[in-house]
């Protein structure tokens, strides 16, 4: 436990010293909020079934933060640690591979949570953010979505032969997820063809379950999202456990 907590604290510090990662997790979502908030405001509209544009965007941007942490932050960090021999150096100590993985997940989770809280507070202060769900349901949706995407990040790190390829694959998956899932542009504006494609985009299900719980939907309306995210989680955990390499 001592070694695990020290590793987690260290990873936490390193994350904060990484300006790019901190920017995309903490600052970028707020910039998005400012831009789209100043264009559309947060008036209630039938388009978002009685909610405003900001009310719908905040849970969607939280989905974006989850994707950033999983597909970019975790996958690239782990692949880089492996390529540069950091993991191999750990391997010569009594540290276990699960400590390495769990510390990454924990730090990713805390950073995502901080990013989400900053976003929520800003939206509340500037745009009078509305919330129609209950905190526990939103928390469950958040934990499920994060687990699923962080596991996907480990899977990427496991199958990518180099840090560079993890970077490229991560980006190649990240951007379609960002734009075709409803995380940045609401899927209500998608033409039918695009909407079809977006069903193959994993982040779509994060956006749906996060927005659903935010608006106070019943879980029964989101069975499909939950099942898909669980399947991604289980498959990713199995594959990343099998493909985990120290060097």
């Amino acid at each position, binding site marked *: 436990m001592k070694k695990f907590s020290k*590793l987690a604290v260290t990873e936490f510090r*390193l994350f904060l010293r990484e300006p790019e990662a901190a920017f995309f997790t903490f600052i970028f979502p707020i910039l998005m909020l400012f831009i789209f908030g100043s264009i559309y405001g947060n008036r209630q509209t039938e388009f978002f079934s009685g909610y405003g544009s900001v009310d719908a965007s905040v849970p969607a941007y939280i989905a974006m933060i989850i994707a950033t942490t999983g597909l970019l932050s975790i996958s690239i960090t782990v692949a880089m640690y492996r390529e540069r021999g950091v993991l191999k150096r750990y391997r010569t*100590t009594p540290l276990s591979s699960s400590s390495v993985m769990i510390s990454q997940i924990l730090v990713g989770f805390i950073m995502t949570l901080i990013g989400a809280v900053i976003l929520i507070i800003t939206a509340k202060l500037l745009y009078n953010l509305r919330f129609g769900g209950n905190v526990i349901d939103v928390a469950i949706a958040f934990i499920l979505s994060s687990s699923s995407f962080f596991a996907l990040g480990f899977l990427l790190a496991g199958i990518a032969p180099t840090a560079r390829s993890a970077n490229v694959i991560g980006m190649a998956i990240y951007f379609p997820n960002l734009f075709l899932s409803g995380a940045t542009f609401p899927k209500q504006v998608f033409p039918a063809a695009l909407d079809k494609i977006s069903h193959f985009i994993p982040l779509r299900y994060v956006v749906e379950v996060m927005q659903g719980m935010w608006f106070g939907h019943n879980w029964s309306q989101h069975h499909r999202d939950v099942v898909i995210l669980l399947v991604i989680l289980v498959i990713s955990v199995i594959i990343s456990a099998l493909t985990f390499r120290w060097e």
Partner: protein
Amino acid sequence: MPGQSVVKVNTLCKRYGKVKSVDGISFEVYQGEIFGMVGPNGAGKTTTIECIESLRRPDAGEVEVLGLDPVKDHKQLCERIGVQLQESSLPDRLHVDEALDLFSSFYRKSINWQELLLDLGLQEKARNAYVNLSGGQKQRLFIALALVNDPEIVFFDELTTGLDPQARRTMWELVHRIRDKGKTVFLTTHFMEEAERLCDRVAIIDCGKLIALDTPENLIRDLKEGQRIIFTLQDNVDPAQFHRIKYAESVAVSSDRITISGSSDHLISEVVNFLTGNGIHFRDLRTEQPSLEDVFLKLTGHQVRN
């Protein structure tokens, strides 16, 4: 002289695809010695040391370290050994003191890392990020990390590769100090001079096989090359007369430079007596002992760095 055996390797084999990287190597390392494996790059040194460090699983043969099986007892063994790897790094923005604090937390038993900072001359760099350290400072940090659990055996794989001559000498001093604290040191190097200066015993490895294993002095003595006495003539004299010098086994002439070889310890005084006795003027007289480099050349038929 040998203490207790702390590393036992018996007919170790490891192959990568079709290439036999290590091909039936056997040796023992004794408590308290500085044991060196030398050989050219690709000889199988790193593979061997990494099998002992429990980083790799041997294809065949037995390895025992401190009475433990490196494959089965990975965790227990890691508690008791310290390792510096040939190729590894730390996160760029990790500070020196944080790295030491972090690695100390991995072990059940650890020593005060503040003292290690002082010992290794890193105290002024304690708040520096890994990425801003020089090559020598990085290497000293890796030595500190290898010592943080007060290990019984310390492994150094190519410790001085890529360092400038001065930093290399600092490393040699550090290695001696580590041994003086009662630890066993197991190192690999492709610098023959380093092995000769540093190691109590040297294992010469080439193409995955152990070619020789002994103290550097014995290895050189077994070469029976004797010493070479080299000087430059200032007058025009006939070099053929040097064959008359007692104990001179061979005379080589290259313009005005004369090299006289022989195995007797009296050769040097005979040469000097002959030159002064015959009134022959000479300058730049020096003697050359055969080195481990010569041993390697003789045993393998090729240079270390090809």
